[in-house]
């Protein structure tokens, strides 16, 4: 009985003391719901490129420190974005001359009434650069907060006026 109690106390101590979490973002996140404006589809193909270098950023949230590999997060966004583009009739081709460069430049986990993951992205379309920031829901379960942020990021890319103009051939 005493051993069991000690183990529980130890587990609780580990739980409440600070620890580092390095979460691998899912490549299967579906974009948050959005509505595309009426526009021409099936035009010139686009190539998606990960423009983020290997870099890990850390952010404290509650009693944890979250570490995020920015290149992995960019891969997660690109995987979901490619599915959304294809689903909506925008051809994606790794050999296309037109390139949409995507970089998740910052990942910050914040804690206030639950975990919330804030992503910042930079999109490069030719000479044009666009910054996108997510505003997703918080959750008591941090992987859900990360998935929500990724889903919101893809939704914001898919509905950004400059991205749509670029996809349409602008």
């Amino acid at each position: 009985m005493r051993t069991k109690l000690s183990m529980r106390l130890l587990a609780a101590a580990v739980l409440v003391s600070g620890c580092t979490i390095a979460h691998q973002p899912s490549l299967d996140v579906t974009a948050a719901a959005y509505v595309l404006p009426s526009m021409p589809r099936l035009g010139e193909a686009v190539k998606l490129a990960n423009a983020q270098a290997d870099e890990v950023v850390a952010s404290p949230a509650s009693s944890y420190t979250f570490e995020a590999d920015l290149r992995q997060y960019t891969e997660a966004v690109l995987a979901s974005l490619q599915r959304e583009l294809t689903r909506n009739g925008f051809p994606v081709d790794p050999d296309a001359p037109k390139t949409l460069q995507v970089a998740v430049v910052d990942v910050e986990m914040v804690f206030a009434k639950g975990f919330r993951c804030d992503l910042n992205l930079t999109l490069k379309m030719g000479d044009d650069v666009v910054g996108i920031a997510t505003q997703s829901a918080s959750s008591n379960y941090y992987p859900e907060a990360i998935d929500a942020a990724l889903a919101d990021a893809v939704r914001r890319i898919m509905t950004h006026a400059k991205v749509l103009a670029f996809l349409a051939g602008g």
Partner: protein
Amino acid sequence: MPSARLLVLLWAMGLWPALTGCSQNLAARVLPGADVGAEKTYYVVRHERDTRQIDLVVRDTMRAMGFRQVTSGLEGVMPPTVDIVVQYEDRWMWDMTNYLIMLKIQFRDRSSNTLLARGRSYRTSMVRAPVEVMVREALEAIFLPGKEA
């Protein structure tokens, strides 16, 4: 003699608030290649739900830190000459009185909306501090890293 389960519960009830009730941390990051120097012009955007005018505190703190060209106000009246937009998020909680649990400040390039830098101060109830202190902490974490150590 209380059961082991009850002992664990009592222990957790006492220790959890003791540990989490005095949590405090700072986080900041300046993105690679970002230019957030004193020669730039800044505009602190007051968000529409802010009745406390925290934008003025951010503006005055930045001026005190040597940023001469800082103005603030609503987004709709931002001067066209601004280089960098400063945004903040204030999260409040109730524990006997209302207190600021988190203040996050972000610096964005005005033309592209890309993130240049961010800072955050987080303080739970037992280590609560006035808005002015948390604004200064968040800004110093960005511009004077290591000062808080």
